[in-house]
């Protein structure tokens, strides 16, 4: 314990020992590299989801109910004007209910599995998710406006599919993507012409009237990507009619109220069919979907690491028993028990260092794989965690065999056959 400096001066010698036996150590290093990669991906997954979870969602989902409202497949096609009138009636009936605070039509609800994406330019960076909403959406979801304004009745001028200018509110991520540090209010987002999109879309200009802080549609586990809200007025027959209604309920509304609400809706629009869920339930579903992939993956990774750990214990133990004589000689020449611990653990740590260096080289290739975008900080943190984890794992594995080696009596060891 007292002469650690002596022990540390042995470090170069340890590396030399490992290097000299590189052929027989090659397989051990391969195993450790593979274990390092497993550990790295475990750390990456866990840290990524844990860190993302802590970021603000950008909206409130408590007490918001989600109504899917669509005309039945079997219903004979009714005129667009009639459809719009029943849509409008649905919203006014909902607002008239005593437990309802607000209701808004929306094309893509939070926690849903559907996407509506558009790409304004070449490259993943310019892909934007779009949701088409009515005026009340911001208050229904309690969005945080950071610049400009939310939609209002004056935007009716831009209504309809024929209008080449559409008013939009974007999140800060999209504002940074399209305008950098410049003020996005009043500016237009347009498509790059000649990219194979329709002629109508090519002419469309998306005019930014406001910026919200963030809108993580996926769930707490999804990163904040580009998001854009486009405004629609359901009474205008030429504009888009979303198929979902989000309803902000008064706090404390019982779940059993759903049945009553459904009856009201069916009476109001008999040619439509409805499904009611709560955003809280949708969120649960979305989370379960992630756990369904994550938990088996982590379990398998844990099995792999247990297997590797046990294997390491075996290999180190074996090498200790085989080298009893060498250790005995060391003891006879005055090496203390601590020196032996240090020596046995140190050898495995040296081996691990070789593996970690090689593993770091492999891990450096990971950002080149475009399958999932991970923030650089998370990536760096996972590398650190994996390196530390690797040393902890190997030290733990060498601990018991090193104790065994420490108990060797020089006289016994020298006789050992």
């Amino acid at each position: 314990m007292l002469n650690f400096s002596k022990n540390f001066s042995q470090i170069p010698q340890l590396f030399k020992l490992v290097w000299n036996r590189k052929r027989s150590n090659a397989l051990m290093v391969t195993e450790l590299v593979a274990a390092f990669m497993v550990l790295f991906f475990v750390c990456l997954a866990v840290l990524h989801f844990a860190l993302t979870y802590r970021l603000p969602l950008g909206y409130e989902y408590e007490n918001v109910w989600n109504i899917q409202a669509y005309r039945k497949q079997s219903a004979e096609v009714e005129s667009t004007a009639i459809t719009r009138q029943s849509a409008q009636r649905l919203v006014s009936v909902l607002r008239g209910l005593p437990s309802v605070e607000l209701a808004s039509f929306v094309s893509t609800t939070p926690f849903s599995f559907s996407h509506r994406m558009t790409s304004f330019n070449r490259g993943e960076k310019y892909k934007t998710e779009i949701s088409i909403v009515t005026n009340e959406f911001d208050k229904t979801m309690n969005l945080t406006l950071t610049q400009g304004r939310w939609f209002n009745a004056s935007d009716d001028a831009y209504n309809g599919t024929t209008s080449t200018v559409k008013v939009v509110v974007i999140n800060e991520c999209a504002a940074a993507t399209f305008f950098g540090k410049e003020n996005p209010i009043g500016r237009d987002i347009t498509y790059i012409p000649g990219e194979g999109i329709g002629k109508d879309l090519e002419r469309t200009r998306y005019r930014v009237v406001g910026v919200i802080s963030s809108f993580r549609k996926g769930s707490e586990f999804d990163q904040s990507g580009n998001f854009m809200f486009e405004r629609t007025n359901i009474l205008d027959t030429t504009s888009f009619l979303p198929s979902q209604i989000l309803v902000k309920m008064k706090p404390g509304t019982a779940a059993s109220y759903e049945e009553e609400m459904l009856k009201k809706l069916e009476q109001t629009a008999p040619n439509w069919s409805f499904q009611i869920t709560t955003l809280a339930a949708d969120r649960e579903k979305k989370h379960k979907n992630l756990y369904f992939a994550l938990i088996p993956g982590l379990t398998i990774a844990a099995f792999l690491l247990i297997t590797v750990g046990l294997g390491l214990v075996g290999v180190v133990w074996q090498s200790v028993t085989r080298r009893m004589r060498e250790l005995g000689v060391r003891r006879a020449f005055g090496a203390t028990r601590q020196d032996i611990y240090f020596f046995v653990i140190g050898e495995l740590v040296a081996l691990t260092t070789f593996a970690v260096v090689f593993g770091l080289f492999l891990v450096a290739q990971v950002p080149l794989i475009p399958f999932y975008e991970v923030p650089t900080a998370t990536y760096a943190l996972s590398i650190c965690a994996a390196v530390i984890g690797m040393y902890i794992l190997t030290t733990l594995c060498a601990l018991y065999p090193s104790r065994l080696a420490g108990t060797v009596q020089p006289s016994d060891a020298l006789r050992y056959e």
Partner: protein
Amino acid sequence: MLRNYLLLAWKVLLRRKFFTFISLVGISLTLATMLVVTAIIDYHANPPRPYTKQARMLFVKSVMGKSKDFTTINEPHYGFHDKYVRPLPGVEKFSIQTESTFITYPNGQKTTLTAKIVDGVFWEIFDFEFLEGAPFTEDDNQQRRMVAVVSEKTRQRYFGDASALGKSITLGSKTYRIVGVARDVASSLSVSGDVWYPVSIDLTPKDRTGVLDEGAGGFTSVILANNASDLPSIQAAFQAMLPTVKFASSNIEYMQAAAETNFGVQAQMFFGFDSEDKDYGKRDNATRLIALLMALTLGFMALPAINLVNVNVSRILERASEIGVRKAFGASSTALVGQFIVENLVLTIIGGAIGVLLAEAVLLWITSAGIFPNAVFHVNARVAVYALGMSAVFGLLSGVLPAWKMARLPIVQSLKGGINA
């Protein structure tokens, strides 16, 4: 000779119990993981009843429609299946289905019912087990009789333990008379549902003629062939039929689709739908998925295999003097390699057996926890054979290198026990 090897192998395993334990933990955990995954995939690739005739079935699900402005991948309309798929040569039986969801409140409990809207032939292609009554017939379907079949679970929710026959069930604005109760099917299988009623009831004239751009979409179909060997010719006829499809509007230029086996459909769902996929419907997704699964299996096995190699190499060095003696008495390298590989195979097969038990326990837990509702998983004969094969591959993979190392040990040094290999 082999008997001696086996005996020796057994003795060696008992001599170093800790090493045997480490090896067995590694092998059994690895194989158990693979077996659980395999058993779940096997269940979906070769599902139980009502998929008894699966070997003769082809499914037509999502199709890609290409228009000037955009591409959509959707389940097509009734008319496409009826007019173009039904008359294909080699089709013995043909059924068209769609589905819908209803929210009901039986006994005040909110219940989401998945309704499968099917024709009468559906019940001839899939042999559902009926607990009560019988399925509705094709005549019921043609005559638009308001009848329905409910699942065991739906009966439980609505009527408790009482019989459901002759009782009625209201879905949306329509009320149906229950004529049969079918045993529950695992909800991860595409045929599963909570209630079934005749497809004609909801069909409008426009739906009947619509192909892809008129009336309502969302229909799928099942083809039952006379023989499993007819499937390739039906698939070829299906591809030849596609260019002849006529659309209501001139907006749609052409469509791409495939009539696939059940496994092929699931493989396509696994790979996902990409509207920019130029080869949609033309790719052999089943083979692609199998290749991917095999690559993943090998990748997963690599680490435990290397681990076992390392443990084995250490164990051989420990036995250096034994090997020296055997060599000195004239044992050939081949004999030594053979002996060691047998030893390792014994170890992996014992590990495999423990793996099967572990896997069965995990599958029992998955079944009872209801992670896949109504599905009952087991290590069946097919999966067990696979386990045996995998154990053997694993044993060979991890045994060959150490055995070769062992056979090369120099005699003199091994006898002295001072190996530094």
